[in-house]
């Protein structure tokens, strides 16, 4: 998708004025954190598991070539194939070639953020193949021609009336005046529409939450079962995975899975956690005839050994989105590309450039809630600050900001001067503000006073008053 991250402020402005979005985000902001907190309260070993998961991921990162090699060996040993893709374009072309080789007309899809990243749906459509999203949230955004707004809950930005409108507009085979009030009814409708698509699909494409080197397997987690129907019914199962998804063993995957659902939705375990290894066996009576794992680099290897390496630990649980007050205020679309929230703020500039995505790491108060809930303890605020340092040195930040900071730093390094300036400001603002105790408007401070009053200083600076107090006590003693 074409990024609109450069228009973040305008996007955010629109989002803040969107009544439906605000209703939806209010529901999201309380729901997910409460559920996560409850799940963690039930598991005394959670912190220790975090430590182990981090150790596993760091170990893999340091041995990434080894584990990817072993993964490929085991995929092949089980009858599957691995396709190595440096770029989004290579991945798109690989998937298209696989689909064409099977004469595919329709393709069902499980949710895949890598799929979004490479914009596979648009590409398949342009080439005469129909992709059908099967995760209910992905299906809803697909028929609305918009991207997902959350990495695990794609339609979280919508209220049910919007979903009903979209179903009415799309499922034209059904009576137009049918009642579509309740999520139950809409889910049933989607289920029956999509059941036919599952059965008719030639190829199924899923993402992968993890790849397992020991067995050459891929893992997906869903609550709906759509990823399973996507992969077992068609002629081929194509897995889209970025290269940092590999973990060493089934036991390591089990540790990661203990962290994933709890961090994401507050569930003990996702309803369907599926480990797929190769195509159907000779004696199987179902399963795909082919198993292809498309492994994508697209900027991941460039993070190794650098300031943003820790982002490779991300397991795409979305805990950071769920707990971020900025994401909660504006939703995912405002970020302008595939990845949103705190992880998006760090990852997006690595993938589409800091010039395009510069707003994202700046739109943060560094409250630190993201890092505190990240199962991988990724230092997200620190990495956002690192982006800000790069912008500063590239002079990408606005001139007024740079000048303001330079002035401030000049004064701050000269305490005698600083004391005078502070004393003067305290006197002037204190004088003008004394009547009401606050200002409704202040020149140059519209960013503040447009929305809130500015409390007035007490009238003398602390350093002035302290010096007075010291003089008095010296006189007395």
């Amino acid at each position, binding site marked *: 998708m074409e990024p609109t991250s450069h228009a973040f402020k305008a996007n955010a402005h629109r989002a803040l004025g969107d009544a439906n979005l605000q209703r939806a985000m209010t529901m999201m902001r309380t729901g997910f954190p409460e559920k996560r907190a409850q799940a963690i309260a039930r598991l005394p070993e959670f912190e220790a598991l975090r430590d182990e998961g981090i150790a596993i991921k760091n170990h893999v990162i340091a041995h990434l070539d080894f584990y990817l090699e072993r993964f490929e060996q085991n995929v092949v040993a089980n009858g599957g194939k691995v396709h190595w893709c440096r770029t989004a374009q290579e991945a798109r072309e690989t998937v298209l070639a696989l689909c064409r080789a099977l004469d595919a007309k329709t393709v069902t899809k499980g949710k895949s953020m890598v799929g979004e990243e490479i914009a596979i749906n648009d590409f398949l459509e342009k080439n005469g193949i129909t992709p059908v999203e099967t995760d209910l949230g992905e299906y809803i955004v697909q028929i609305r021609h918009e991207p997902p707004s959350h990495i695990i809950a794609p339609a979280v930005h919508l209220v049910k009336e919007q979903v009903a409108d979209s179903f009415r507009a799309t499922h034209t085979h059904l009576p137009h005046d049918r009642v579509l009030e309740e999520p139950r009814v809409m889910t049933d409708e989607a289920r029956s529409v999509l059941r036919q698509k599952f059965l008719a699909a030639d190829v199924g494409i899923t993402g992968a939450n993890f790849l397992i080197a*020991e067995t050459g397997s891929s893992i997906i987690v869903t609550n709906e079962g*759509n990823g399973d129907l996507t992969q077992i019914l068609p002629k081929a199962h194509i897995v889209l995975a970025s290269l940092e998804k590999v973990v060493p063993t089934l036991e390591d995957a089990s540790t990661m899975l203990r962290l994933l659902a709890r961090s994401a939705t507050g569930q003990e375990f996702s309803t369907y956690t599926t480990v797929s290894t190769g195509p159907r066996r000779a004696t199987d009576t179902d399963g795909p005839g082919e198993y292809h794992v498309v492994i994508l680099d697209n900027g991941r290897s460039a993070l190794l050994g650098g300031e943003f390496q820790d982002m490779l630990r991300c397991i795409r649980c979305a805990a950071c989105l769920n707990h971020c007050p900025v994401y909660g205020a504006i939703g995912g679309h405002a970020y302008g590309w595939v990845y949103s929230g705190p992880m998006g703020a760090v990852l997006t500039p690595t993938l589409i450039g800091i010039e395009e995505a510069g707003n994202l790491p700046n739109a943060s108060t560094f409250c630190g809630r993201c890092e505190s809930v990240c199962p991988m303890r990724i230092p997200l605020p620190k990495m956002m600050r690192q982006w800000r340092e790069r912008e500063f040195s590239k002079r990408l930040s606005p001139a007024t900001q740079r000048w303001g900071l330079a002035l401030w730093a000049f004064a701050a390094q000269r305490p005698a001067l600083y004391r005078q300036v502070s004393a003067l400001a305290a006197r002037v603002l204190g004088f003008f503000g004394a009547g009401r105790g606050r200002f409704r408007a202040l020149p140059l401070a519209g960013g503040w006073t447009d929305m809130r009053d500015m409390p007035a200083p007490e009238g003398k600076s602390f350093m002035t008053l302290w010096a007075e107090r010291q003089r008095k006590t010296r006189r007395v003693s």
Partner: protein
Amino acid sequence: MSEARDQIFGDIRARLGRGRLDPAANAAAEERLNAHRRNLVPARAASLDHAGQVALFIAEAQAVDTTIARVANAGDVPGAVADFLSSQNLPARLVMTPDPKLDAIPWDARPMLELRRGRAEDSDAAGITGAFAAIAETGTLMLISGEQTPTRNNFLPDTHIVVLRASEVVACYEDGWDRLRTAGAMPRTVNFITGPSRTGDIEQRLVLGAHGPRRLHIVLIDDAGG
């Protein structure tokens, strides 16, 4: 090997500041892989005796809308299945995986139950399978694909009934993997199933039966094998 593959591996190694792993590091990684040691296993299930694990499995499964009926022996299973279907106002018709574990159940005790043995079709409203294992830690069933256990039987029918033996209940996923490694090669699909299909994608309101079954019912045989 492809040019893309070579470049990716070259880039990874260059960024990690080395060539291929040196022999010692390689051997250590190989050893770690082959040993597949367990990491921390929560005490929740692992600290219990088997009877405690079975009780925990039931409690965890019920917490995610799985229904469970305990029976004393295989002979009680047909009645429990028939009772469940009628309690849900469902027809007494099931597709059954061609699994020897299910063949061993005396289905003739309930001749009203229509059983079709084989792979599920979209028209099958209810299906019955066995399970490879059951994980007490989170009330999770572990099912594997195979000649006798087509995966689609776990997903196509709206109602999924599982005949489970208490001896199949283990504490944790790691116990399940140990059993699987003993049983042979990795199957095409391992399904860990924790409750019926669900979605919260519309206003985060929970709805059961998104694409997979909306009902998951377990008939648990308290086999003395423990």
